[in-house]
């Protein structure tokens, strides 16, 4: 119905139905009133089954994805990719060749070693730097990948590329694509939920945009402070009863108008969206209330403890969301943009996320959910082995789009392996080197989607997450 006003496109076999337009962030929480609206098209779908649109095209290895976004560019050299060579080169001058020089190279630059010691953990002997004291217990669940490269050396463009495939923003986010492809399992919740930091990442909400996909695929940020969704609650002297009565009067006024335009389905959809919104006012706060979790669970995630409280809550909430069928949950932690004092900055950041992430993996595993859930840990790029040394000690690292470490856990990945490699200084990926688009294709594949078939016609061409197509990184897939 809303199709008649949206951008025209050739028949792709997908119409923007009323159902989609209601399921924006506008997911219904409690679908009683909705059932009537959906009845005409729900016959084909058994309750609880995904209302899929395009896929799955392949056998899914995971049903959900939890994406741990380490914004700012975590250093692979100080987390999961040890570079003993840097011990030898420490404070020796670093000279970059080539014409692609940027201002980053102004002044003298020096190699700097990692301030952290590295050890191997688990049967698999996964390398981790010392500040990771909890994650190492889960070492054999992880699949490390050191071959990924991106195009952009600036945060927002690299974030856009990580999240949407397109450096310049405006395209749909990963979670939008996945929900577009697989539909939602839980009609009462949005399929793409974002748990941002109090301060939004560079590039802002465009990182979880629906882009040219229907607005219903937009990521729903649940804000960690204040109202989780903007304007979720009415002004404070509006009781629920007063709102209900206002809604009833609105409905009666709308009824007269609607009678004059019975063909105009958008009017009914709009009416229903008011009812959904009214219900969400009570159900969303309930979802966010962690009171029902056991004290043991809470403390395992580090909830209520510093410095883990903030990310611990997000990780626990991520599990609760995935449990309820949310397809794609994206968590933000940062900023890992440590140009100076990497020891202090990265050390603190690792301590903030280490325990919550380990708890999340353990919790998922214990509940039998890990095999259906793909967990990804990733920044928008890695960091350089060199730095303009600040005051002799305050060194950090700059942006490096040519080398980074990403790890995966859960559904369908080769746990206990480290794939790809960077050169001996961590400057550039040299083994199993792939563009990030191949990473996107791999993620889709694990979730049962074929990037080449997960397309949307916009602006004169079929668009896809990878932009131009590519190849899955088969080595990562079990």
């Amino acid at each position, binding site marked *: 119905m*809303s199709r008649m*006003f*949206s*951008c025209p496109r*050739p028949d792709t076999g997908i119409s923007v139905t009323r159902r989609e*337009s209601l399921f924006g*962030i*506008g997911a219904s929480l409690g679908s009683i009133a909705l059932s009537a609206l959906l009845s005409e098209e729900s016959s084909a779908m058994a309750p609880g089954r995904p209302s899929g649109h395009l896929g799955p095209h392949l056998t899914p290895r995971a049903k959900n994805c939890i994406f741990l976004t380490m914004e700012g560019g975590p250093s692979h050299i100080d987390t999961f990719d040890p570079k003993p060579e840097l011990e030898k080169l420490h404070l020796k001058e670093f000279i970059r060749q080539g014409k*692609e*020089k*940027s*201002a*980053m190279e*102004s002044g003298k630059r020096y190699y700097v070693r990692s301030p952290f010691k590295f050890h191997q953990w688990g049967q698999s002997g996964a390398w981790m730097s010392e500040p990771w004291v909890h994650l190492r217990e889960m070492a054999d669940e992880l699949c490390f990948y050191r071959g990924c490269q991106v195009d952009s050396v*600036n945060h927002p*463009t690299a974030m856009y590329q990580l999240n949407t495939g397109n450096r*310049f923003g405006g395209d749909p986010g990963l979670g939008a694509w996945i929900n577009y492809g697989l539909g939602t399992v839980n009609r009462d919740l949005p399929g793409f939920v974002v748990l941002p*930091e109090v*301060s*939004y990442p*560079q590039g*802002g909400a465009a990182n979880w945009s629906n882009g040219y996909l229907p*607005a219903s695929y*937009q990521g729903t940020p649940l804000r960690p402070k204040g109202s989780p969704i*903007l304007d979720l609650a009415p*002004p404070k*002297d509006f009781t629920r009863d*007063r709102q209900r009565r*206002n809604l009833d*009067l609105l409905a009666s006024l*709308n009824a*007269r*108008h609607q*009678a004059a*335009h019975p*063909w*105009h*389905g*958008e*009017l009914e959809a709009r009416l229903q*969206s008011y009812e*959904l*919104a009214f219900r969400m006012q009570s159900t969303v706060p309930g979802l966010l209330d962690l009171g029902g979790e056991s004290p043991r669970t809470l403390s395992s995630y580090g909830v209520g403890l510093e*410095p883990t409280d903030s990310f611990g809550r997000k990780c626990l909430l991520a599990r609760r969301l995935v449990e309820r069928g949310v397809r794609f949950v994206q968590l933000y932690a940062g*900023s890992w*943009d*440590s*140009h*100076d004092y990497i020891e*202090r900055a*990265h*050390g603190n*950041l690792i301590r903030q996320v280490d325990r919550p992430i380990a708890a999340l993996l353990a919790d998922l595993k214990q509940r039998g959910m890990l095999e259906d859930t793909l967990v990804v840990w990733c920044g928008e790029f890695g960091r350089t082995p060199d730095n303009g040394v600040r*005051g002799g*000690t*305050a060194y950090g690292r700059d942006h490096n789009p040519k080398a980074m470490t990403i790890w995966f856990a859960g559904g369908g990945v080769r746990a206990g392996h480290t794939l790809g490699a960077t050169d001996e200084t961590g400057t550039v990926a040299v083994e199993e080197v792939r563009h990030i688009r191949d990473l996107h294709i791999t993620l889709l594949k694990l979730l049962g989607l074929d990037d080449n078939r997960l397309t949307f016609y916009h*602006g*004169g061409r*079929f668009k896809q997450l990878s932009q131009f*197509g590519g190849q899955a990184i088969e080595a990562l897939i079990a």
Partner: protein
Amino acid sequence: MTVVGGGGASATLGAPVGEAEVLFARRVWPLLQEKCTACHGEDEAKRKGGLDLGTWKKVQQGGESGLPGVVPGKAESSPLYLSVTRAHEDWEAMPPKENDRLEAEQIGWIKAWIEGGAPWLEETQRNLVRSASGGSEQEGETVVTSGGLSGDWTYRRYKSEDLWAYRPVASPIRGAPGNKHPIDAFLEAPPSGASSLSAPPADKRTLLRRITFDLTGLPPTPEEMKDFFNDPRPDPEAWNAVIERLLASPRYGEHWARHWLDVVRYADTSGFANDFERGNAWRYRDWVVRAFNADMPYDRFVRLQIAGDEISPGDPEAIIATGFLRMGPWELTGMEVAKIARQRFLDDVTNSVGETFLGHSLQCARCHDHKFDPVPTRDYYSIQAVFATTQIADRRTPFAASENVNGFEERQYLLIRQQAYESELLRLNDQSIAAGRAWLKENHFDPAPFDRALKAVTAGKGSGNKGSYEQARVKMLKEGVPEKEIPPKLAGFSPQDFGGERVARKGLERLQWELERYEPFALAVYDGLTPQMTGVFRPLRIPEDRMKSGEREQTAILAGGDPFAPTVPVRPGGLTAIETFNPEVKTDFPQSETGRRRALAEWIAHPKNPLTSRVIANRIWAWHFGQPLAGNPNNFGSTGKKPTHPELLDWLAGTMVAAGWSMKTMHRLILSSQAYQRAAPGSDLDDSGEAEALMAAYRAFRPRRLTAEELRDAMLQATGELNPEIGGIPNRPEINPEAAFQPRQVMGTFAAAWVPNPLPSQRHRRSLYGLRVRGLADPFLEVFNEPAPDFSCERREVSTITPQVFALFNGLPIHQRALALAARSIRESGEDSSVLRRVFDLALGRPPTPVELESCLAHWHSLIPELPRVSEGSPMPTEIIREAVEENTGEKFTFREILPSNQDFVPDLQADQVDARTRALADICLILFNSNEFAYLY
């Protein structure tokens, strides 16, 4: 010369060439090149499945399956054919990408070629066959262009109907049969199968509401409604009077500028990592408003935006107009390679010119010849060469008398912030000096060199040198003091200080851009050499030696679009396919630094350029009717939708050129047609499909939801709060307070909070004038589909999602409007039912029905006694404490952000200032603002 046949048979070209040979040369071979050989070609590294389709021998060898790729004579046994059908169990669908899937016709060529014996021709033979015969209609047409990267592209054939946009515009000759309006005459022939029924003319109220929103983006006032109903003149005259009144209203230019600004991606900030403010972008926005209001001929409108500075270098308006070229997001951070950033600008401006004026997104041709349209990559770089001497700068441009320079005194608030940042840096500097001395003492180093250095760097600068500590360190280093004896950088910094220093330092940097608002500079361009840059942290100016210093760019075709991989040099020019169909358009493009853009402007605005006039005629039509004639206003290429009424589109385009490119003439024509004045599908129709068919055929009017801006502006007009001031520096209305204070990371720091203007009249400007920050959309406008300025928006989307309900039913700004409407209605009328009549009149432009009146009265009265007492609203905070993770330490830190203008903040009417009767009535107003009748335009 022989043709090697598939079955090994051979033939000479002298003999009659078979259909299969022609098919191969013209169709199959180019198709293989376009769709297959990237993965199945010579390049072994890229080859997939071991299959090479480059030579007949390799085709016969086949791929990993071991079967030959083609079995001559037997399509159904040929893997090549089976794969492209995408329907065979054993053979994977090819090409893999949905984008590349073959059309039925193309699959048919492959089939016919195989069935015809699969003859294979080498290059010279292929070229001979291709050029030998003219080809039939079905085989399509070749188009002469500047030439593709391969002969196969150059000689490829296009379906005739895909070239419609390049052909000359048919001259507007249609005589009107009888007294029919020409537009109605063109629309008369119903598309086959459609009903020939038409909706009746809409009623007067609907019509006035429709045209008033259409031309001004606002609802008619109750007085205007009354005047229209009471106009004694017969219908066409009264209607024409309305058209003239609205076209003469300055509100017209504001609303139609909004359309244009959607297309050009207008924003007041530069996007990406820094999202720096473009302090004077507003002057371009206002220039567009003035251009529409003055009915500037469209060809001039085009010329000035592309080359105003070259055409009228002395005219400030012409300089301001070139702001168009700067609309894309752009920055150069210290991290990025300057040449890449420069190339981003060039690519952006090339594509934008194509999309905006020519209905051609050109970016496809950046890396390769266009896959579907006759746009060779050479043409892309020819257009780009036009901009090779175009440099960005904010140019000194005096304010014209026509510009609104009110409100510059708000600058004082920025200066207070500037002062606060300065003091913070000074404090930190003093702290570091003390800490540095302590460090020297602790480590038993001689303090004298430090003291000497400090004294030297502060000499003559008083105590106000906020960087003296760091300067002293650098001086010591230069003087050869061993590094280990120099006190450390940022000595004595706590995590708090690291954050504070960064926020202050970057805050000063950001203020430089914001202070630009009040200065006589224009977001513009100049001609010159490309200056060397390492980062842009303050507004750019024209360098004095613009023609001497820097790189003289020689544009070349860039392999893969990579600025470090130039191949063949190109000269400035336009789209050569256009010149093939319309030789008059050909223009001389100079090679000198200056004049290239002027030439392009002439080329685009040429009356015979068929894209330019069709594109704007189509846009105007779409903005009036909510549906374009050619379905994709930004894409007139073969992948865009074909015009539903091609003759009408040509008639409109031709008429517009003949009328001196007058926009207002076009409005008059369209608005006076019957099609425009028809009712929407009515109550007798409940089949949405049937309604859709009627609307698509212009037999019933297509209703639409109001845009985000229209919703807001209509409420402000209903409450009487709308400030009609035109133009000027962007204003800042109150937005959702949590969004206003939402911390937002920008490069190295946090963007300042959204602080509303202090005075209600400043806040209640039309939505067009709100500061548009790329990184922070007004959540209200955003949920109602205000387009993000990342992409050109050819047409507003409409979606129905629950966040709209939260914004429109719960949000602060709406409750303020509801209260203001209640207060106004009570002020302007007497007893309760007359108050309600006034509410309906102001909000919906009609009186309530008796039933509505009764239910609203009952609701109102029931609410009054139960409303809780309202306490005084809390004043706007004059500072906020921000919490963030500091990147130097990875630790949380907080900082205080001052909001100086909030000291002078005058709130809108507050609930505690009115009685319960008014507050209860505000609920009725809220409900009306949320009603479908308010939100939809019929």
